[in-house]
């Protein structure tokens, strides 16, 4: 049934027990963004070491999809070299847009979010954390008007 496909166990698990839901001490990069449709807001904190994402965390409030997606982002990107982390983000967005097929090896738990593709209004929820993450990495977070308030 469609609902169970959207709200898969793994999503609900990430929602209820989000990984890395905390401010990262000593994070050099941080960025905040909201989804103007629903008011959800996610802040991402990243601490870099030797060109890799050494520590990653997030804070914010949101629906199950946006929180689960943020939690999966933490799992998927922590420990990766910067360029690899950026690459995951690009490919995740492509997967949500439907131009890349889901593949468990590359995406792990993230595959569960493809159920959202059938709900256009919710895709924004799934990519919100990734928007913020990419903005944080680009160091652009401070330059835009979207800094944390």
């Amino acid at each position, binding site marked *: 049934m469609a609902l169970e496909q959207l709200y898969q166990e793994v999503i609900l698990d990430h929602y*209820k027990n989000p990984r890395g839901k905390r401010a990262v001490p000593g994070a050099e990069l941080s960025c905040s963004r909201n989804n103007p449709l629903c*008011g959800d807001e996610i802040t991402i904190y990243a601490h870099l070491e030797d060109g890799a994402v050494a520590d990653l965390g997030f804070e914010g409030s949101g629906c199950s999809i946006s929180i689960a997606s943020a939690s999966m982002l933490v799992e998927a990107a922590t420990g990766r070299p910067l360029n690899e982390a950026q690459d995951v983000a690009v490919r995740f967005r492509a997967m949500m847009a439907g131009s890349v097929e889901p593949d468990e090896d590359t995406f792990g738990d993230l595959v569960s979010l493809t159920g959202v593709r059938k709900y256009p209004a919710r895709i924004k929820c799934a990519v919100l954390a990734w928007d913020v993450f990419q903005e944080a990495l680009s160091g652009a977070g401070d330059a835009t008007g979207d800094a944390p308030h």
Partner: protein
Amino acid sequence: MARVAEHAAALDVERIRADFPILRREVHGRPLVYLNSAATTQKPRQVIQALVEFYEQHNANAHRGVDTLGEEATALFEGARAKLAAFVGAPDPACIVFNRGTTESINLVAHAYGRKVLKEGDEVLLTQMEHHSNMIPWLLLAQATGATVRHLPIREDGTLELDALGSFLTHRTKIFSVTGMSNVLGTIPPLRRLADAAHAAGAVLVVDGAQLVPHLPVDVVDLDVDFLTVSGHKMLGPTASGGLYGRRELLEQMDPFMGGGEMIREVYWDRATWADVPWKFEAGTMNIAQEVGLAAAIDYLGALGMENVRAHEERITAYAMERLLDAGARIFGPTDPSVRSGAISFWFKDIHPHDLATVLDQEGVAIRAGHHCAQPLMRVLGVPATARASFYIYNTPDEVDALIDALRVAERLFRTA
């Protein structure tokens, strides 16, 4: 309010429903339960038919031709103006300016009245429960003029903090703009009292009628308001229909808003004079078919009787609030159905409103989730968003039951294991 309900006739909701083709639709295999009329209402066949008839029989540009179609289109368009004037109790059709709805109307007042009247140090008074459409135009106006925008607080129960009115509404206040019915809390402010207070302070009262006019009998003379906005799409009319009531003397003093064809009297290379009101505010080809459609919507509501519309909504709101509270929902805004509207914002079992709306949609139930274009109010309420069910003439108690059943489905899905 209670008085209204007493001598009101019950609406024949089954017959009404038969007039709305979309209500025969299914969503995800379930009959559509449309509980989102505060966003926009559905349209009866009479309104759709009025559009079809206009385009098939009378379509022409209004006020421009001496040909038969042109005269018919003009008569229908101006006839719609007279109907809207009568519907809100305006003394004269010339007090009605047509446009796309409440947002355009408030921008018009802010631009054509506000820029003329406001000076640095002046104040515009709003309340904490306004829609962005009754905030941003004043913010932009304040930026352009150096005036300040203030916000009358609300109480815990979602009503206005009227005790503070004296300190917010002062001789510096030139414009007091308030919703006639909150789209989030359902609150219905005491407009006549606010009008009297505004006038005593030397301010004009602008009423955002987006939610008010579709749901309650309104008389601008009794209420003594200076401006009242009307959103046609929220009262059975087409999108892009509606307009602004304005006190005639004020409309006459005001500068134009948009410039263009038809709003002029004489045009020279370097100057122009303006047409009489209301045409001074109607530039270019207007939303002719849409206002003709709105006239059919007004006929439809008029035949039902606005007191009966209100009584129906009061009953269904009472039932919905009872069942929602029973089910464990937290309701924002006044809880007495006789002093509020049928737009019920709630929070249910800590399920995020977005998730709730998605699950409900799977069950065929359409509600709205989000900040309802009232981000600052959400901060006052301490929530990022709410779920909102809203009712109109075509909703039944069975649909309230369907809402509750769908909430249970969401509850099961999100229950912490």
